[in-house]
């Protein structure tokens, strides 16, 4: 039986690893390659690596922030793929088929697109035809408004689209996406648990795997995400700030009766 996956998400900004809160606050927490080695040694199920650097903005106070375009992150990808015998999904600032070629040839198994998929949805069709659906993840960032309405946002959570997540998820599936990374903006970094209604709505609207992300504060939150309909549960912060985060996360899932790879 296919096992439910537990996935650490690493966030890269200006070439450094960061933690994120509400998509706005980013604190530097470490070395981008060392963390991957650690996860590889822990034998984790797979890894998502997202570069959230803004295309046109650099931190001018620091002279080590020289990241421009995809080049520097790709050097990190080179280093990462040499130590990583687990599946790796690379996302962030991928705009063209050529960017994707670069990522795959350097060792990514899947690529994740978000804003580019919204701006030119045809990119999903082209990439799925070229690389196969199984290699194309569409990342969907969702904001829940005060009245409970959900809306897809792009540009790292800055630009509203007017689309509901269910509608957009169905469209990306029809265009050939093989997986959805579903992120809740208003739960990001809060530790309040996943947005379970959102996960339920998007997984029932589609028949491709949904990876839930955003809000995990306790290991018990993972099982709720799976029960709500996710095929895999992802988190970022909890992997950095707790001991034995893979072992304990898996144990909590197994204890809840969910089949995982131990």
């Amino acid at each position, binding site marked *: *039986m*296919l*096992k*439910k*996956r537990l996935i650490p998400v690493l966030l890269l900004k200006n070439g450094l690893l960061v933690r994120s809160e509400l998509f706005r606050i980013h604190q530097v927490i470490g070395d981008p390659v060392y963390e991957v080695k650690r996860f590889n040694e822990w*034998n984790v*199920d*797979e890894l998502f690596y997202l570069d959230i650097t803004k295309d046109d903005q650099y931190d001018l106070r620091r002279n080590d922030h020289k990241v421009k375009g995809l080049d520097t992150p790709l050097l990190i990808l080179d280093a990462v*793929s*040499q130590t990583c*015998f*687990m*599946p790796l999904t690379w996302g962030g600032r991928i705009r063209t088929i050529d960017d994707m070629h670069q990522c*795959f*040839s*350097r*060792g*990514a*198994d*899947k690529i994740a697109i978000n804003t580019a998929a919204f701006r030119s949805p045809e990119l999903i069709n082209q990439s799925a*035809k*070229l*690389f*196969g*659906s*199984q*290699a194309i993840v569409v990342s969907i960032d969702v904001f829940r408004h005060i009245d409970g309405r959900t809306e897809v946002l792009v540009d790292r959570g800055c630009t509203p689209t007017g689309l509901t997540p269910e509608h957009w998820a169905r469209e990306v599936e029809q265009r050939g996406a*093989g*997986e959805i990374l579903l992120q809740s903006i208003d739960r990001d970094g809060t530790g309040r648990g996943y947005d379970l209604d959102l996960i339920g709505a998007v997984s*029932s609207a589609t*028949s*491709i*795997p949904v990876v839930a992300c955003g809000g995990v504060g306790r290991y018990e939150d993972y099982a709720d995400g799976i029960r709500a309909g996710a*095929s*895999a549960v992802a988190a970022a912060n909890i992997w950095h700030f707790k001991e034995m985060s893979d072992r304990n996360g898996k144990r909590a899932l197994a204890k809840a009766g969910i089949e995982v*790879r131990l």
Partner: protein
Amino acid sequence: MKLVIVDYGMGNLQSVANAFRAVGCVPEISRNPQDLKMADGIVLPGVGAFGDGLKKLRVEGWIDVLGEEVRHKNKPFLGLCLGMQLLGTTSTEHSLHAGLNWISGRVERIRSDDPAIRVPHIGWNDVSFTKKNGLYSGLGDSQAFYFMHSYVLYPEDPTVISGLCSHGIEFCASIEKENIWATQYHPEKSQKAGLRVLQNFLDMSR
């Protein structure tokens, strides 16, 4: 020994090479079909669509050399993911395509009416071994490997199947036929169990 990884422009060759390096063999990634003549073992990886894959093999001149070295000279061969599917007779991915026909069988999309069975089949799934030596030497009766695919190869002759997996349907996870081995999953991404599969392939190629 000299291990050659066929680079026909389909996918993630660096990961496959890195994994072989981790088990003590430095492979050569080659764009030149003539390199297969000097090879002791041949690896055909591949990510992407069936039709494109076969077209690239043909246009770049791999098909005849592969046939000569693997089918006639019986060199050890390992196909990975798309590299396994391409061995079949036909595929229905996007439209009907002819394959290499080394293993009689059809490549078809995974179908299921169960909404819990999501396609693509992505993640770790158990493979139960029907041939316990070969690639699975030292790995017991079953192991979890990482899968990432929507299509599967259904061989006509069930005796070529060396491992079975289930996702809505039971399907062939790996093949062993004389000097031809192939896996639908990605051993290069399956941590320790996957590295052992590659190690076993090397041991059989020596």
